[in-house]
């Protein structure tokens, strides 16, 4: 059996597709691209593919991953090229490598990083906001209400937050997109190329997207627990801030910048030789 791990991006054009629909998109693209994907045995054969952490509807990502089992020979480079010829606009494979170990991407993800573009209800200035938000996240415990299976539980999200950074839009001089962000680089903050591009297009929208001026927008960049053991959605830390005496924040956009897989020694990029 020949396993290949791909890294792909999910752009604005395809951010409203559900995880289930995305798998169908890939299944059909694999067939169009004549990729020799292996199928499960049995009455209803399924293509042998595993995707990383599902991306919530409405979120873009520059770091999505999937593992494919192939039944025939095809090099990772060839697979990437063939697949890119048949993927709809907004989906693009940016890296592909042979995978030797048995771990699958879905089971091994432990951390995810995001940039969340937010709009404060009132804007006392980025310096004050940053100060207040960073102070808030320095607390020993951050309790939020989380709904799961119809029940509302209180949980402490503090241990699930590894990093959190606040950055104003103007600090990065949102200008024309400077490239480089599309295929990795994992740049957090408002400097992220995807965020820059998005903010640039906001003013051209019909109607204007957020109910606030572009200059009021700022970014929270965070690395959070992800995967089957503990998964923290990026909306939750934002929700925690709301109601803490800090101006209420409206989420304008969420963008995923990276995923990390856990190994015995340390957390690695999924395309790192040590993770493959």
């Amino acid at each position: 059996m020949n396993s290949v791990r791909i890294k792909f991006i999910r752009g604005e054009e395809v951010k409203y597709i559900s995880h289930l629909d995305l798998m169908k998109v890939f299944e059909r693209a694999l067939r169009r691209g004549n990729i020799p994907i292996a199928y499960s045995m049995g009455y209803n054969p399924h293509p042998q593919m595993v995707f990383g952490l599902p991306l919530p509807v409405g979120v873009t990502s520059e770091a999505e991953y999937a593992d494919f089992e192939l039944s025939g020979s095809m090099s990772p480079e060839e697979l990437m090229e063939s697949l890119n010829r048949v993927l709809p606009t907004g989906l693009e494979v940016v890296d592909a490598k042979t995978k030797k170990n048995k771990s699958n991407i879905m089971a091994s993800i432990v951390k995810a990083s995001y940039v969340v573009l937010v709009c404060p209800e009132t804007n006392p200035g980025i310096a004050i906001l940053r100060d207040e938000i960073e102070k808030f996240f320095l607390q020993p415990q951050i309790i939020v209400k989380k709904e799961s299976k119809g029940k509302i539980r209180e949980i402490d999200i503090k241990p699930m937050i590894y990093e959190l950074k606040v950055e104003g839009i103007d600090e990065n001089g949102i200008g024309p997109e400077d490239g480089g962000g599309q295929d990795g680089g994992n740049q957090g903050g408002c400097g992220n190329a995807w965020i820059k591009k998005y903010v640039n297009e906001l003013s051209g929208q019909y109607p204007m997207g957020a109910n606030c001026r572009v200059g009021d927008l700022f970014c929270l960049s965070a690395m959070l627990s992800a995967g089957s053991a503990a998964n923290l959605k990026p909306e939750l830390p934002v929700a925690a801030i709301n109601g803490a005496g800090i101006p209420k924040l409206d989420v304008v956009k969420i963008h995923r910048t990276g995923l990390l897989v856990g190994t015995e020694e340390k957390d690695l990029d999924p395309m790192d030789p040590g993770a493959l």
Partner: protein
Amino acid sequence: MKIKISDQILQRVEKPSRYIGNEWNSIHKDLKGIQIRFAFCFPDVYEVGMSHLGMKILYHLLNERDDTYCERVFAPWVDMEQSMRANKIPLFALESHDPISQFDFVGFTLQYEMSYTNIINMLDLAGIPIYSKDRTKDHPFVCAGGPCAYNPEPLADIVDFFMMGEGEDIINEVMDEYGLWKVDNVSREDFLNRIVNIEGIYIPRFYKVDYNEDGTVGGIMPVKKEYPRKIRKRIVKELDKTFFPDRFIVPFTDIVHDRIMLELFRGCTRGCRFCQAGFVYRPVRERSAGKLLELARKLEENTGYEEISLTSLSTSDYTDLGHLTEELIKEMEPRKVNLSLPSLRIDSFSLDLMEKAQRVRKSGLTFAPEAGTQRLRNVINKGVTEEDLINSVTTAFYGGWSGVKLYFMLGLPTETYEDIEGIAELGSKVVAAYMGIPREKRGKGLNVTISTSSFVPKPFTPFQWEAQDSIETLREKQRYLKDRIKSRHIIYNWHDAELSFLEAVFARGDRKVGNVLVKAWEKGCKFDSWGEHFKFKEWMEAFDECGVDPHFYANRRRSYDEVFPWDHIDVGVGKRFLIRENERAYGGELTSNCRADCSGCGAAAFGGGICVEQR
């Protein structure tokens, strides 16, 4: 002006991918060099419209033209409409996101009468005047086609021109004329004058309707003698030589029919007397198995779909079905592509086929006896016997199937309560057939569903003169049947009689009912075929306020010499034949199918298909 819908809106509506576009195989063109922009509108939501084969064909056909850019438009769901109106976003096309008010043509496909209010709503959302007379040179031409266009009169004041019959040829002829007209830069009226003599074009404003004192139509005459008195539908004679796309748009989200649809043939040989499709699509014309295999291959390569379905009015009547399915399975199985076979008559041959073709969960098999007794089945010319049905289900039960759906119609001409009782009895016999099979040889969990729709008399059928049962009578019949179904293995579903009543009004309506459509829409009627949005009270108020009696259209038996609102439309099948068929219905006489014998319906005038082939 490209409209970008903000995330603020998209994040709050149900199924935002309805409004995104950019699907695989969708066509995006550079506007440079484009002379004609065509908005192909389906007056229902994305998932329904995207499942329609006619739209797939015409979309790709129009986009083959270098001078034309055809885009798709669907009715936004009520949540999206609300956001669009609140934010002053006009109706836009899915590919370019440009407002369709800037287009040259806005074309609607008329698949069912109860989508008419959505047409009005879409025109209004687009900012295009609803009435044809109010449009100027700044507005697109509004055109329409599809099965409901065979009685175009309810939409006569709204649609600028209709295209009758199959669209492949006529739409190109109209585009050619439009290109010339645009260069000449003359009046709007002038364009209509240029196309009025293209066969199949109907321009309502060029025709005047006279009414008799009793409200029936006295006559429909062209206002100038140069205009055709009769408008004949168009057909394509040879399907093998007719354009069929080798790619379909592959949607991101589930649609109703999310698979490759292979159209085996057009028309139907059977002539069930209630079925409009069985008459208006005559004559039967088949695609060759060779051509179908070639199309299947290309479509599979270009879409990556995991399923191919064979679609036609009565798929098992395809003359080369055995060979075609065998070849398809041979080619598609290694590529893990399934074959699905809808609307099959179930005999041992087709069961064998289904075994081979589908890795199906052995649940649903569908049969449509349509009526509960042999007497009534003969009246409607449904050549199915009780024995056929029981044999079929028994074979199916032995084959492991345990779910059966049975479709019937209530309110058919000459129906008595005995016929309705017959439906319940047929259901019991199906249950008995299952119980008669040894436990170890049948599937588990018998599940029989009986569904009844209400008979809607349609133009160009032998029943076009018939009265529809009143809503009260239909409901009483539904109750009667419900009380007669005793078995716990049988589930009974019925269609809303109020909706069928309105369908009957607009199916055979004249120009006077057009105002009712607009009035009902003003009262908030839209998405009428979606139960939760159907507002019967508002509809009845609209009739009242317009001074139109709906019962005159739905519940009145017509005489053979009455002039119909659609008598100036020629579908090939003639009135004299339909009268003969109506008489034969009352005599309980069967009429043989086209393959066995020609009954002289008139479709031979087209000189194509089965009418010219050797029997």
